[in-house]
C-alpha cells in the first residue's frame, strides 16, 4: 500500500528513532485514487506532537502524489504501548530508551538500555515527554528514559 509506505518513513517528532506507523498510532488508511484518508489515535490525550504529526502526514502524502489528504482522529480503542512494532522496540533500546513491558503481563524489572543490568530504580513516574518515565541504572549509574507501558 503506497500511503502506508509513505507514513512508515515519517519519524515520531519526539522519538525520531521510530516511525509513526511503528508507534502504532496510524489506525487506518483508505485510498481512493488520488484521495486518501488517514485515521490516527493519540498516545496521550494531551500529546503536543499530534498537530505536528498531522501536518507531516498531509505534507508527505501530498508530495507523494495524493491530491486530497484528510486526517481524522479516532479515540477508540485507546492506544496502548503494546501496539509498538517488535522491531521498533530494539531501536528504542539502541536510542537509549528502555522499551515498554507488555501491559497485562506481570511487570518485569526495567533493564538499563546501555548495560542491560536489571538493577535499576525509578526516579520519577514522569519524564521528558508524556510517554516516558525517568529511571537510573544502579550498575552503570547512567540515567535513562523508560517508555511507559500504557
Amino acid at each position, binding site marked *: 500500500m503506497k500511503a502506508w509506505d509513505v507514513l512508515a518513513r515519517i519519524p515520531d517528532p519526539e522519538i525520531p528513532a521510530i516511525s509513526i506507523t511503528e508507534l502504532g498510532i496510524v489506525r487506518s488508511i483508505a485510498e481512493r485514487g488520488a484521495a486518501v484518508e488517514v485515521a490516527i489515535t493519540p498516545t*496521550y*490525550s494531551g500529546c*503536543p506532537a499530534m498537530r505536528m504529526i498531522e501536518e507531516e502526514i498531509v505534507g508527505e502524502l501530498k508530495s507523494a502524489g495524493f491530491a486530497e489528504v484528510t486526517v481524522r482522529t479516532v*479515540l*477508540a480503542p485507546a492506544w496502548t504501548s503494546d501496539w509498538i512494532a517488535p522491531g521498533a522496540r530494539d531501536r528504542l533500546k539502541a536510542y537509549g530508551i528502555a522499551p515498554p513491558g507488555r501491559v497485562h503481563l506481570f511487570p518485569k524489572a526495567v533493564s538499563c538500555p546501555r548495560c542491560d543490568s536489571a538493577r535499576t530504580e525509578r*526516579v520519577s513516574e*514522569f*519524564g*521528558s515527554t508524556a510517554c516516558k518515565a525517568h529511571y537510573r541504572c544502579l550498575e552503570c549509574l547512567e540515567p535513562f528514559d523508560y517508555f511507559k507501558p*500504557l
Partner: protein
Amino acid sequence: MATKPEFVLRLGDNALILGQRLAEWLGHGPALEEDIALANVSLDLIGQARLWLACAGRLEGQGRDEDRLAMLRAQHEFRNCTMLELPNGDYALTVVRRMLFDAYQCVLLARLAQAPEDEVAAIAAKSRKEADYHWRHSADWTVRLGDGTEESHRRAQAALDQLWDYTHELFASDEVDPDAAGLREPWLALVEPVLAQATLAIPAPSRFLSTGKRGVHSEHLGHLLAEMQILPRSHPGAQW
C-alpha cells in the same frame, strides 16, 4: 441513560481548571522530578479537557467549540467542582487534592467507559488510563508526606482537613448527574487505605456542600479565569 451536555461540561471544566492550577507549578515544583510530573499531569488534563469540551459543544449543538467554551465563558458558566479551583497552597495541598480527585476520576471514568454515547465512552476509556497513572503518583506522595516527617504530616493533615468537605460535592446527585452518590463507596475504597497508610485522619462529618458544579463558585475562580483567558479576550481570534 443518555449523558447530558451539561454533565460533559462538568467533566471538561474539572479537567481544565485542575490542569490550569497544576500548570501554575511550572518552574516552582519542590524538586525537578515533581515539577516535571505536575507539568505532565497538567498536560494530560488539558488534553482531556479539550476532548470533553469539544464533545460537550457537539452535544449541545449551538456551534461552540472547545476554545470558545474554555476561553469565552464567564465564571458562573463554569461547571467544575469548587475543590479544584482553590489556590494551590503548599505541596501537601496540591498532592492531597490531586489524590482525592484522581481517585474520583478512576471510579467515574470506569463507569463512563460504559456510556451509551460512543464518543463519551471513548474519551472516558482513554482518560481512565491516564487517571490510573495520576492516581498512583498522588497516592504515593500522600503516603510519603503523611507518613513522613512531623512537618510534612502536619501539612498533609491540614490539607486534608481543608479539602475533605469539598469532596461532598463530587457525590451530590442532581438532575444533571443522578448517579453521583453511587460513586462514593468505590471512591472511599480507594482513598481510605491510602489515608490509613499515610497516617492521616478523616475529618469529622459536616454538612458543608460546595456548589461549583452548579455554577456558584468560590472567589478564586474569577482570578484563575482572568489569567487563563486574558489573551483570547484581549486579542479575539489571535493565532500564532
